[in-house]
């Protein structure tokens, strides 16, 4: 997967997560019932005492998290930006894991929006960690030729990290 495709995929996933988090945050503040196919379980989760952390709705924390991840993805491509995305998604994944634990073991109900966000965050973490570990893609020079100038999205590129 080229660096450009990977970045776009991550941006699309972030926007999806952002949409879910925005909806749940709206539901929380509006005090309305969330769209749910599993009866009252979404309402049970989203009105439980675990829906807030130190008085801040977890939905809002998620929303802010997605916005910061999006900013790291829109920043100029580089080692630092890739590290920021990877670190943020690792944090997001751990937070999602904590919330899922609360749903299953403390609230005994599952919220579809929360599960969607957790799945999105898990995929994002895998992709962004892979993106960070493989680093900048450098093109392989054809045999006997001088090294070509780097070009974004070169499919023949070899990951720097895999050179060893």
């Amino acid at each position, binding site marked *: 997967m080229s660096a450009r495709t990977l970045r776009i995929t991550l941006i699309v996933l972030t926007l999806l997560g952002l949409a879910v988090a925005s909806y749940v945050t709206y539901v929380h503040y509006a005090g309305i019932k969330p769209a749910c196919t599993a009866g009252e379980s979404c309402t049970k989760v989203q009105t439980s005492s675990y829906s807030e952390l130190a008085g801040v709705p977890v939905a809002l924390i998620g929303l802010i998290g997605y916005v910061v991840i999006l900013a790291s993805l829109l920043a100029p491509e580089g080692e630092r930006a890739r590290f920021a995305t990877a670190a943020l998604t690792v944090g997001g994944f751990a937070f999602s894991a904590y919330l899922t634990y609360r749903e299953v073991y403390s609230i005994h109900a599952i919220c579809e929006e929360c599960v969607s966000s957790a799945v999105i965050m898990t995929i994002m973490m895998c992709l962004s960690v892979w993106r960070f570990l493989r680093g900048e893609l450098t093109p392989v020079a054809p045999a006997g030729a001088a090294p070509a100038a780097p070009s974004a999205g070169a499919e023949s590129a070899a990951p720097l990290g895999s*050179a060893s």
Partner: protein
Amino acid sequence: MTPVESDEADLTRKERREQARAQRKAMEEAAAASAVRRTRLTQLGIVASVVVVAIVVVLIATGGGSKKSIPSTHERNSVVNEVSALVGGIPQKGNVLGSPTAPVSLQYFGDLECPICQKFTLGALPTVISKWVRTGKLRIEYRSLETATREPEVFKTQQVAALAAGKQNKMWNFVETFYHEQGEEDSGYVTEKYIQGIASQVTGLNLAQWTTDRGDPTLATQVTATDAQAASNAGFNGTPSFLIGRSGGTMSKLEYSNPEEPGFMNEAVEKLLKA
């Protein structure tokens, strides 16, 4: 050595030097790449460690077990709105919800700490209330039967608190709020503070009067003698249990398989209305 042989020998030496240089360069690049990878893995490891510590702190701060904590302000507001929407505007008198002239009567034997009663109260009861009670066809009497509550004294205290709200015709608001915010069974969550918290969420309840009424000995008698005897007479030993019949007539047991589905109650009410 001819000039040609000398050139060939030079070329071979040159090639060897270049090969050695290329090999050295490749090894250096590989070592550099390996070092970069190690650095990245270390960075991610540090991030993961920090995140794990943060989550453990959050888990400890929010309670590691499954015991429910005190409801949030948002949760409480949501419950108050839900309960008001459910029973608001319906006549209440003591432990009875519904019109006094309703043709069908239901007695609901419950324990405020019983999780199955909660399932019934949050699952099937809202439909029954909106379909039959609000329309004046059914009246529901809430009666107590100790099952899930382990301590008889706690059972009496919470039930008397509900009946005291009934003296202001707000018992159903109290009972509904209690079930909405019910805690983990056997976790000892029902404390004086918890009961006060439930009462404070009952819209329009005069708390000073309610506190005085909690000391009324007739309410304690109703819990420990009247209701307990009625449940015993009916042969009930589990909650929720129901007696249903034409108002003023004979009451009979109402069996159910799924307390969350209102079907069994709808059928019984329809049958009695036709009788």
